[in-house]
């Protein structure tokens, strides 16, 4: 399991939302599933991030009513997040920056990729 940096985390969450609108808990599960458990996004990190993405206009939110195990009568509300067009552009920027960074590092790594570690 790895701890992604803030920018990476933003990319991860935006990428998940690019597939479909999700609510908070579903996002944590989607990240877990897509990374085979190598990336975990805890709720204490996820919800402030979602709040920031919403404030920045990268995601839009809507509420949906769900049935509740804890209360009778009308259920509580669930907040769904969806990628906005601004968020799509943001995601594209993240992907481009990520690829540029990987490409740059590859130029250093490639000559040594098959080399035996020196004792």
């Amino acid at each position: 399991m790895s701890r992604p940096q803030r920018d990476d985390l933003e990319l991860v969450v935006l990428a998940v939302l690019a597939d479909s609108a999700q609510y908070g808990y579903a996002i944590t599960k989607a990240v877990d599933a897509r990374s085979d458990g190598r990336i975990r996004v805890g709720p204490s990190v996820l919800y402030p991030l979602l709040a920031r993405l919403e404030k920045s206009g990268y995601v839009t939110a809507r509420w949906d009513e769900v049935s509740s195990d804890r209360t009778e009568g009308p259920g509580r509300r669930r907040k769904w997040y969806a990628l906005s067009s601004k968020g799509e552009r943001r995601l594209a920027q993240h992907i481009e920056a990520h690829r540029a960074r990987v490409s740059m590092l590859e130029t250093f790594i490639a000559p040594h990729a098959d080399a035996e570690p020196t004792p």
Partner: protein
Amino acid sequence: MKPGEATRTDAWLDEFERGMRAPAKRRRELRDEMETHVEDRVRDLLVAGQTEETAHERALDELGPPRALAESLDRVHRAHKRSMMMHAGVFVMAGAALLTGVVSLNQTPGTPKAIAPAMTIDAPLDDDLEALLATTVYLDTDSTWENLFEQILDAAGGSIIDWDDFDRIGASAEEALFVSADDAPIGVVLAMLNRRFDNDAVVLAPVSGGVEITSQSAIDARTVRLTAYDLSGIVDDDRVTSDDVIELITSFVAPGTWVDCGGEMARLSIVGDRMFVEAPARYDDRIAWIISQLEEGRTTAAGGAGRAVPGQGGGAVGEIPLVEAFLNGRNSEPTGGGRPVPGAGGWQSNASDPRGASSLGGGGGGAGRPSSTNRRPGAGDF
């Protein structure tokens, strides 16, 4: 669910809600969101074979201390408070007119039928600015201008604010707004607050990577430019005099900002069949529209069939060679790198303003600002 687990979850949620300083509605929404999260998580853990007690304990542990999460969420709304940075290259704000309320000459019910189509001055808002104006803010009765601007800058991804400018127009940082707003769009809040200013407004100007919060007068001062308008065939001493045209324009285009009317921002002179206007760029469309109406009215009166109005947007033709002759004759070339662009309707600088608006004379509008000299037709001292 066992009563003990419900109580523990409620206690966590209560403390979480109390730990936030956000308005009540937002606190309630976040509580709902966390409660649904806990319930979803507990359900999955129960399916995975955990006991109810363990499932609740783990779900709450994953959320962490309620106060810590509450503070993290609060911080999102207070972000950028001290990270505002100076930024150069400010664009003329496309949506300034939207916020200042100087928008259109739409016909209203019960008024005589307009002979000209409604005129809209606004340039289309760019997508980002439109999204920003639709972003909601939260204000309570103690909120100040600073609180509002923090939320705007937060939503815009940061940028600049010049507090001296706002002190000047009477919107200092610590001054309370006396406005409550839950989920109110920024555009609506600013439009409402802008009603407090007589000849000014708070406007948002897109800059690279964010937005500048500034005043309309500050934007205007930066975009003062000299424009020439063709009045040939419009002004004659029998029907429409030079004074008529001046009065029309100073009455309907940003009244109170003209030097001849006690303002400081704009001035105009008519020499022969040319009118020279030194004013903020945003005045151009409205002036051109008024002139086009005068021209159309004259054509109609003469039995004409409404001949085409020359120049862009009506009467503005930007007869730069004539202006240049005036300037050259008085050895007063613009000093800000500006050079005449035929047909552009004004001076266009080499600076970064993509809309061609620049300060005549450069220097942040200082040299290009109108003096207090009373300019009447024939003065000609450009």
